[in-house]
């Protein structure tokens, strides 16, 4: 009888231990899942994983570099640079524009560059001759990537890091 009660006692505590083993093994199983969102990357993929899942290596965009300068590459003002701050930039012939274009083909208030998050967007303000981003006319605000030419009349500007 004494033996049995010893066994029962051991089992009783054993059960409590087992319950906690269950809890901790669940926690252990979800350990790698605790990081949420974009930073959930865990280490580099091994060679074998890379072979099986090529999409892992192509590795998304290189670290985002913020645009710091606006450079005029063509047109009457070619060579002008403008430091970018966080404020929107008005481009046109009007005297209150941030960058006053001496360009007969540009409208008074031609286009606007504005920051949104980490990117800059360009938007046409109803100009006569239109604004071209990388060769196509703008119909709505679009993000401007680094080095992509934006044409306003005969002036071409681009963003540089």
């Amino acid at each position, binding site marked *: 009888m004494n033996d049995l009660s010893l066994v029962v*006692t051991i089992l*009783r505590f054993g059960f*409590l231990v087992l319950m906690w083993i269950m*809890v901790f093994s*669940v926690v252990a199983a979800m350990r790698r899942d605790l990081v949420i969102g974009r930073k*959930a*990357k865990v280490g580099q993929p091994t060679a074998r994983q890379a072979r099986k899942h090529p*999409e*892992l290596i192509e590795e998304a965009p290189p670290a985002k570099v913020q645009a710091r300068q606006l450079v005029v590459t063509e047109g009457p003002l070619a060579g002008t640079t403008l430091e970018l701050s966080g404020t929107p930039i008005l481009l046109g012939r009007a005297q209150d524009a941030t960058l006053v274009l001496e360009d007969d083909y540009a409208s008074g208030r031609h286009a606007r560059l504005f920051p949104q998050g980490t990117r800059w967007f360009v938007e046409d303000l109803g100009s006569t001759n239109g604004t071209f981003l990388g060769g196509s006319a703008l119909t709505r605000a679009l993000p401007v990537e680094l080095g992509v030419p934006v044409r306003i009349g005969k002036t071409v500007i681009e963003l540089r890091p």
Partner: protein
Amino acid sequence: MSQLLTVAKPRRNTELLLIIVALGMSAMANALVNLNLGRNFDNDFYTQIAILGGLALVFHIVLRLKAKYADPVILPLVIALNGVGLAVIHRLDITSGDSAATRQWMWTSLAVVAAITVIWFLRDHRILRRYTYISLLISVVLLILPLVPGLSAGSVNGATVWISIGPFTFQPGEIAKITLAVFFAGYLSSNRDLILLAGKKIGPLQLPRTRDLAPMIVAWLASVGVLVFQRDLGSSILFFGLFMVMIYVATSRVSWILIGVGLIVVGGTAAYQIFPHVARRIDVWVNAFDPEYIGAAFGSFQVVEGLFGLANGGLFGTGLGQGTSDKLPVANSDMIIAVIGEELGLIGLFAILCLYALLVARGFRAALGTRDAFGKLLAVGLSFAVALQCFIIIGGVTRLIPLTGLTTPFLAAGGSSLLANWIIVALILKISDAARRPIDVSTADNSKPTNDQPLKEVPSP
């Protein structure tokens, strides 16, 4: 661009391992009950373990086939809880001569089959969104059913929440929990922007427009209706809490919480003044240790005995089958937490609470991971319903709040609750599968805007 950051692993083998631990827990609990109460290890013991193991295995295989990327820890957690519940009900049966455990086994099997059916036939949780308003209709019907004269099972323990069909009784309100969550999720994911943008701002609070308040008023009236006509305080709190959390998650406006709390205060005070059964609940709660209340019918005997039981259990518990809580009325449903607390002690009770916490956390994780607003809201709503239900009943048993008749999910004896909660688990598993499944980069699916995932519009300056 692919959102793939690591190789997406199905992790079904992890699940299998955890299921084995969970089944071990269940078997050991049953064995301890038999040992402590001097029962033989007859065939019943082995068949029951085999049934639970078989059900778990079938579910596991269905997940492998139909929801390969579903969360690997949810199923083991639920099996562990259900298994411990079965053992405790079996233990209470032995001392009270009831046959609740057999019924619970039947319902467990039925519930698991229902959950498997959901996993198998529900291709995508977003399909449910089409049935937003049908869900509302079903919820209303389900809530009214217990009041229909032919079907109603009458007033049981003061609440009219049961229907009886032939020899079976069923609590339709449990299923209404799910359909209401589907309705709220569908409604809020479609109307979220409207609710968010309109309204005036007073100080730091953005107040909603009056007409956007309508759904909240409807939810409030429904909860009050449940309280008045069915006399079911627990479900009433559950439904309103569910709506409040879902609208808060959808809009992240604190004003909704304040309005909701205001409505609760108004409704609660009115109910306390007008309805004697509500006032009685509160009185019993406040004066629980008053001998007058302990002795009275519908008095505090249950709660007080439960508390004594918890105290008797101490840190390590008396051991399964050795407690005194089996004398409690409805020990195997409302008061099952008190029995567990006595016989497994604080350490065991906390392990159970941890299992619940992990389960709810995994539901929230699925909500964070999934990419459509409807899925997010549904997962949050369903997990929160489980959490709130635990809070209401465990809070009631430990006398933190007045005791109301809700079942402890998965543990307590009660077929409808078991069925509803297993279906909830199936839905959460399905959503987590959608959340963890890698996006197929080969098809140009990503570049096309869909209803649920519109391409980000460029904000106008």
